[in-house]
């Protein structure tokens, strides 16, 4: 016996909403999904009329749905946005080259211009080459740090007003949990905000229109809209730490379905006392991007790769400095011998 749609439209329900438990038919689900994203955009003041917005597009489910729904809402509600796709090619054979094909499909389907920037052209290293240097243990650190900076540089290059990312509610709850477990107060404060980095800080703001959207609904939306996305896992070791946080949350959800929203809410409500010392955000002296250290993480990692000391950016700063000094001292010695 099919269950009827909760909105008494008379049609059969196709989905039980994780947030509310409502049973909805396909059309009522599409409407609810899109309206909630619209409400998030409006109440968070994510965009201004005339903005050029880069959608950070990976070819995966989140960014594919984000690009599609932004196009729909831009037309429906006359946001007046100029939407473009920005993709980062990490240089991972058999993974990114395939997913970029999906992004190109998005470009054609949604009629949005696409810019692809590669790690190779930005940093001189592909992820394949980085993994060759550092092995498969810490490569996610490199990938994550470089992607963040690559998006910033791509956004600057395109001259956009902001970058929209596909982070969903599940991702965010995971991040809150991970930052709590790591004791990373600074990130904990930043990670739930719907807009990060104001223009006054010199970098282009990031917005998360899917911040309150559940992963289940994103996947169901993509399925029922027949959106094509890329779903192969990265060929390199997946982020194990996030995997644990995710598994833990999924277990909690079975006992308490509202846990995702509850954790996001907790993250938003946490306030750090005024007298707690937080890292001051300044600019990297080498590349100018936002950083709490003299050198940003991307520059330290890059220096490590170029010096053949790939661990440089992974351990403590003090250890990195010592490794750097040792190598410099060695070089001086070699130079001295030449005389």
């Amino acid at each position: 016996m099919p269950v009827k749609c909760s909105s008494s439209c008379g049609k059969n329900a196709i989905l039980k909403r994780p947030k509310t438990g409502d049973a909805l038919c396909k059309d009522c689900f599409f409407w609810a999904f899109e309206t909630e994203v619209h409400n998030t955009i409006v109440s968070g003041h994510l965009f201004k009329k005339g903005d050029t917005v880069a959608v950070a597009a990976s070819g995966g489910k989140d960014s594919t749905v984000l690009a599609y729904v932004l196009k729909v809402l831009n037309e429906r509600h006359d946001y007046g946005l100029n939407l473009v796709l920005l993709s980062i090619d990490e240089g991972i054979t058999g993974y990114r080259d395939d997913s970029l094909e999906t992004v190109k499909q998005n470009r054609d389907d949604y009629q949005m211009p696409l810019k692809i920037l590669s790690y190779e052209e930005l940093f001189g290293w592909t992820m394949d080459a980085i993994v060759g240097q550092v092995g498969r243990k810490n490569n996610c650190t490199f990938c994550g740090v470089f992607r963040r900076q690559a998006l910033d540089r791509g956004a600057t290059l395109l001259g956009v007003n902001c970058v929209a990312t596909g982070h969903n509610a599940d991702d965010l709850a995971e991040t809150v949990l991970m930052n709590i477990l790591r004791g990373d107060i600074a990130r904990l404060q930043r990670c739930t905000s719907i807009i990060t980095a104001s223009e006054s800080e010199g970098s282009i703001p990031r917005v998360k229109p899917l911040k309150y959207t559940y992963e289940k609904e994103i996947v169901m939306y993509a399925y029922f809209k027949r959106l094509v996305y890329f779903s192969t896992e990265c060929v390199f070791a997946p982020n194990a730490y996030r995997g644990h946080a995710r598994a833990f949350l999924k277990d909690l959800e079975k006992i308490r379905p509202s846990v995702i929203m509850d954790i996001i809410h907790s993250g938003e409500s946490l306030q750090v006392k005024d007298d707690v010392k937080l890292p001051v955000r300044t600019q990297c002296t080498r590349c100018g991007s936002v950083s709490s250290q003299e050198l940003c993480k991307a520059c330290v990692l890059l220096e490590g790769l170029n010096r053949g000391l790939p661990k440089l950016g992974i351990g403590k700063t003090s250890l990195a400095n010592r490794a750097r000094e040792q190598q410099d001292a060695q070089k001086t010695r070699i130079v001295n011998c030449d005389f």
Partner: protein
Amino acid sequence: MSQQQGLEITLEFGGGAELLFGNLKKHQVTLPACEGKWTIRSLLTWMKDNLLKERPELFIQGETVRPGILVLVNDADWELLGQLDYEIEAKDNILFISTLHGG
């Protein structure tokens, strides 16, 4: 009520779940005749023994699917249909989508 003949159904996989099933998105299968009715619960056990090619823990945990795998029966969320207790009928289309891969 027992089913004399086998039960013909279609199993589909998406979102990366197909990788655990020989990278094949669609399987036509016949469930053997059995005492009582086939349910998703018994289907999962059957799939584990007969269809799952690798790393079963990525698909099944305990008696149910791994959290993060969505199940649709004839294009409807199994959470509307009694989940594990849903009684399978001939010609049913059961789809498993992984939400766990890629952003």
